[in-house]
C-alpha cells in the first residue's frame, strides 16, 4: 500500500514552507515516531512583522513505512498540499494505483540549532 506525505497547513496564516533537512534516505525503513524531515515556515508573506515571523517544524512518522521516493529536494519551497514523498508498506512494492491515503505523521515545532 502506498501513502503520500504532503505539506500540512500548520496554522491559519501558513501558505508555504521550505524543506530544510531530511533525516532518512530513499528506500530506507521509517519506524513509527522516527523523524523524517524539518521544515522552515516563514509567515512574512501573510503575517509580516519587522522581525521575520519564522517557525521551524519537524515531521515525525506516525506509522511504519518505507520512504520510496522523495519528490522534492532540500531547499525547495513547498506550498500547502504539495507532495513531499511517497511511502509504501513493503520495501519492493510496485505502485499500481494512486496512493491510498496520506502517511500518518506528527508535527512539532522545533528550535533550530544555534548557528555560531
Amino acid at each position, binding site marked *: 500500500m502506498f501513502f503520500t506525505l504532503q505539506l500540512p497547513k500548520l496554522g491559519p496564516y501558513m501558505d508555504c514552507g521550505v524543506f530544510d533537512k531530511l533525516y532518512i534516505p530513499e528506500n530506507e525503513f521509517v519506524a513509527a*515516531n522516527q523523524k523524517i524531515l524539518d521544515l522552515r515556515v516563514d509567515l512574512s508573506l501573510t503575517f509580516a512583522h519587522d522581525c521575520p515571523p519564522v517557525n521551524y517544524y519537524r515531521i515525525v512518522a506516525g506509522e511504519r513505512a518505507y520512504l520510496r521516493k522523495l519528490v522534492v529536494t532540500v531547499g525547495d519551497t513547498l506550498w500547502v498540499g504539495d507532495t513531499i514523498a511517497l511511502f509504501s508498506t513493503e520495501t519492493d512494492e510496485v505502485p499500481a494505483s494512486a496512493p491510498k491515503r496520506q502517511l500518518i505523521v*506528527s508535527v512539532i515545532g522545533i*528550535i533550530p540549532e544555534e548557528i*555560531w
Partner: protein
Amino acid sequence: MVTGSKIPVCLGPIEVGGYNVSRSSIRWLREDGQLCSKGEIFAYFTIVISSKENKGPRIILFNEEQQDLKVAISAPIAGQVHQSRDDTLGGWSNIRQTLRWDETDVVGYIEPQGDLQPKPDKIQASLFMVAGRRVTPLAEDHSGLLTGWFDRTRAWSLEAEAPTGTLLSLGICNLRSVIRGESSGFSEILKDVAGQVVSVTDNLLVYNSRVLSELLSRQPDGYHAIARDFAINILKGNVLPSGADWTFAGEFLRCLQFCHLTENYKILTRKGIQSLATPEAVLLSLEAETSSTIKHRKLGYTFAYQGYRRPQFPPAFREWLQPNFELLKRNLNDIREDYVRLVRSIRARAPSTEILVVNMMSSSAEFALHRFADFEAPIGDTAPGVRAQDLNLMLYDLAREHDVTIVDADAIAAKLGGRFAMPDGVHTNGIMETELRNEILRILKAKNVPGFNATKAN
C-alpha cells in the same frame, strides 16, 4: 469660519515660567471631515521651549529630543474633525517652529456625533506629548510622527495635573506595537491615562535579563575597556571597516554604554515642567530570554541580538565578532538567576519599582507530538512549546518569590484562538495587541502606579 455644528478646538493654556513656547503649524493626520473616536490623534505639531533670558546662551529644554518633540492633538469628544486652514501654513512651517503658543489658537473644528447639550462655543484640545531621542542627530526624518531611528521614544499626557509616573518598556518586537500602537505615537495606550510611557526597542541589543543586569552594574571603566578592545581589534581583521561597519559598531557600543533603567525624565504639562524619577514600572518580554546568546571571550560581557540580524552584520563587524565571542548556553536555572539578579539590582535603586514580564505562548491545539522519546533531554532545548511552558513555570516561581507581575499573554492568546491571535507564537495580531495593552493597563491600575491609577480628566 465656523459653520453649522462645528465647534472650534482651541490649544488652551500652557505655563512654563521663564520660557517661550513656540510651535510649528499643524500637520494633519486625518482628512477633513473624517470621523474620529474620543482620544484619537488627528493632528500634531512641533514645539520648542527656549529661555526668555537674554544674557548668556539660550537654554532649550528637552534639548536631546528637540528635533522630535511633538504635541499630538486628540479628539476631545467623538465626532468629525475639520481642518483649520489658518493653522496649516505648509512646507517647513509645518515642521519647524514659526508660531508662538497662543491659547486661543484654533487648531481645528469638531462636529460632535449626536446632540451635544449645551453646545459649547469652543472646546479645549486634548493634548499629549510625544518625544524621540535619536540615535544620532544624522538620523533625521520628518516624514511623520516619531518616524526615524530612535534610541528611545516616549509620550505622556499634557493634561497631567498630579505628579505622574512612568512605564518603561524594554520589551522586544512582540511588545513594540502593543506599546506604541498602530500609529506608532502611543495614542492607544495613553487614551485614558495621564502617565508617561517610554519605549526602548531592540534594534540591535536585545534587553534580556542578563544584558540588563550587566548594564546596571557596568561602571565607566568597564565600558571604556569594551570600547578600547573593540577599537583595537576591529582594525586587526582582514576586512577594512566600511562606513556601514562603523555605523553598526557605533550603535553596538552605544547600547552597551547606556542603561535605560537609571534614567530620570522631564515632562511638560499645562502647569509647567515636572521632573520624574526612574520608572515606577518596567515591562519586559520573557521571549527575550533565548537559550543561547554570545559573550565576549576576554571581557565577559553579553551580546544578545535577534537571530535575523546576523546576516545583516557588516563584513568587518562580523569578522571581529566571530573570534572574539563564544556561545553562551543558558539553561532555565541560569535565566532564573539572571532575573533574580536583575530584580534585586532594580529594587536596590528604587525599591517600589513594579516589574512586569509578558510570558510566552505555550499552547497550540493544532498539532502535537505524543512521544518525546526521540528528543534529547531537556526537551525544552528542542521543542519551543515545551520551552515556553518551562519558562512560564519559572516565571511563576519568580513572581511568587520576588514580587514580579506576570502579564499572561499565554492565557489571553488561548482565549483568542491560539495561533489566530499569535500566528507565529511570538507576534500578535491587532485584537491580541489590544487585549495585551488593556491587561498591562489593568495591572498598572491595580498596582496603583501614579499616572495609570485613574482615568485622566480630559
